[in-house]
């Protein structure tokens, strides 16, 4: 070391040219599309809201005044209310990276139980409903235990319980509907959610209001409570959540139980909506609820998306069906359109997810 080295050692000179920032985020200036991708990543409900508004506008133009009437817009709400409530339950499960094929079967089974007790066995309607609520929660608990304790994948668990609940439903009901007139005579409370507020041409059923209330409550629980953050954490990365001290199995159990409970509320609402208690209805309700969730931009991989998306997803499907019908499009093309809607929704989700990669 005969020479002082005020400028540092010579082999370090090259470092001068390199990036000296410690750490930074990439600038988002790669063009409009890229920026859009980031905005959507930050606001997952934005896509369904845009799609909903655009589809309402487009069908309003094609199908004209009939589509845009207050009566029709409230009718769409009414028609999607049951699938909407099931989609709320489905969202809870999907946020934990699961899936629930049994939601509609739990709902129909609980409506049959409530109907049998209140209409045929002469139990007071509130007690019959209480039994259904407990039953729905227990059905959810069964799904939850199979997922957390027996460690079955949610898909398999609920594929199995779907059949089990459906068979029980047919056994209890003898595949025979309970007639509307018999419900009116014995337990009118069961049809409460079929009542409606009418003003102008609009006809808002209590069932539609219930759907929105359920989404409101669940949204609050998911976004403003510790439980809600745990649900997202478990869905995003179960192991990481566990390492962070979250009791993941308990969280999962609570989610399945809550979903089962929500299904039993849907059971009550469905009696009002359909008018009778029909064991053969809603056979594909599980798939329709998944459609609403997916179209609503909730990621099937868990941990991402807002539950409000499922509400918009259900409404988008309803708007499509109503609009296509009023434009005199054949039923099979309505099915075709919904199929594309699902594929496009998931493709957009995949594209948005790439932003973090």
């Amino acid at each position, binding site marked *: 070391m005969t020479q002082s080295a005020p400028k540092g050692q010579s082999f370090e000179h090259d470092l001068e040219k390199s990036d000296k920032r410690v750490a930074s985020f990439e600038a988002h200036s790669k063009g409009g599309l890229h920026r859009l991708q980031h905005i959507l990543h930050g606001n997952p409900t934005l896509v369904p809201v845009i799609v909903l508004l655009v589809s309402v506008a487009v069908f309003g133009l094609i199908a004209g005044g*009939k589509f845009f009437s207050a*009566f*029709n817009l409230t*009718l769409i709400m*009414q*028609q999607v209310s049951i699938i909407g409530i099931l989609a709320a339950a489905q969202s809870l499960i999907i946020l934990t990276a699961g899936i629930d094929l049994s939601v509609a079967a739990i709902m129909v089974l609980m409506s049959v139980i409530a109907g049998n007790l209140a209409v045929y066995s002469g139990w007071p309607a509130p007690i019959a409903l209480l039994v259904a609520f407990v039953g729905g929660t227990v059905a959810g608990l069964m799904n939850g235990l199979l997922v957390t304790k027996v460690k079955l994948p949610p898909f398999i668990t609920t594929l199995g319980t779907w059949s089990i609940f459906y*068979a029980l439903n*047919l*056994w209890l009901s*003898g*595949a*025979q*509907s309970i*007639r*509307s*007139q018999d419900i009116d005579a014995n337990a009118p409370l069961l049809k409460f959610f*079929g009542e*409606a507020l009418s003003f102008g041409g609009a*006809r808002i059923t209590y069932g539609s209001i219930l759907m929105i209330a359920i989404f409101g409550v669940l949204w609050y629980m998911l976004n403003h409570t510790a439980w809600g953050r745990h649900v997202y954490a478990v869905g995003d990365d179960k192991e990481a959540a566990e390492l962070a001290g979250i009791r993941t199995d308990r969280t999962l159990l609570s989610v399945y139980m809550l979903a089962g409970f929500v299904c039993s509320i849907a059971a009550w609402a*469905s009696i009002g*909506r*359909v*008018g*009778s208690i*029909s*064991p*053969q*209805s*809603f*056979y594909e309700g599980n798939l329709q609820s998944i459609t609403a969730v997916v179209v609503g931009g909730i990621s099937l991989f868990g941990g991402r998306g807002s539950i409000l998306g499922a509400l918009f997803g259900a409404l988008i499907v309803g708007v499509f069906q*109503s609009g296509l*019908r*009023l434009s*005199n499009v*054949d*039923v*099979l093309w309505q*099915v075709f359109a919904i199929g594309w809607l699902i594929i496009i929704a998931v493709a957009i989700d995949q594209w948005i997810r790439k932003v973090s990669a």
Partner: protein
Amino acid sequence: MKKTVYLGATAIALSAFAGAAQAADVGACLITKTDTNPFFVKMKEGATAKAKEMGIQLSTFAGKIDGDVETQIAAVESCIAAGAKGILITPSDSRALAPAVTQARENGLLVIALDTPFEPPETADATFATDNFLAGELIGQWAAAKMGDTSGAKIAMLDLNASEISVDYLRNNGFLQGFGVDIKDPKDIGDEDDPRIVGNDVTNGNEEGGRTAMENLLQKDPGVNVVYTINEPAAAGAYEALKAVGLENQALIVSVDGGCPGVQNVKDGVIGATSMQFPLLMASKGIEAIAAFAADGTKPANTEGLDFFNTGVELVTDEPVEGIPSITSEEALKRCWG
């Protein structure tokens, strides 16, 4: 009911096993669309009772839901393998089951379609069914007679599903013909251009679908005053939709089936008229035919002028009209199924 199927399958397996030893035993199969619909439950009752009476070994199978073709094909194959003499089947799909049925006939089995005819009907040896076209025609004539002047009719057509199977178009077009509408292609639903038809929609044959479909057609024209429905659950749903907007007294609802809740709905004034069919008779006649075929090879003959054996249909209404024979809901309640 699931249990019975399971037992049935076991019986098949056992009879296949025993088949070699006791070739004289006559086996028969009943394959229904589902084992949950009360219509098929009644059919099974009829077949089981008759089979017991005649000493025939009956095995029963059913699809999981209406349209479950795969399970029905597997059931046909099991019956062939078990060496049954004959199959009674309500095909979930009038065309898709043809290859399996042809295979059964090539193996020497007598195949009789119950309730739903194959396309073409010759696919099976015989068809024992309600004349679904006539069933539709009766309620169409009744509705037209009830209205008197039909020029102001606004008709809502609540059909089954998008596949347009035979029972669906037969009832649909029978009704329209009875009402006095030019039906164009008798095998097509919705090709009519009569301005009195408001529209067609599908119900899946249940209350929820019936309600939604009725709401949709009311959207097209709130003046609907005649409602045709594929079956009575769909009719109950349609009534709920009309009632929700206070239009239940504006429209005549007609239907087909004759299930007990449906007949009760005729009595309560929900449904104006329904055409009753007789599933029990279809099945018991079917078992008799298989026994006759096993004894001396005779095959059942069709009703004259039809390509099937007609097991009968009766119009049920409490508001009878001139010239159309009918029975009251009171009488019908004694004969209804389910």
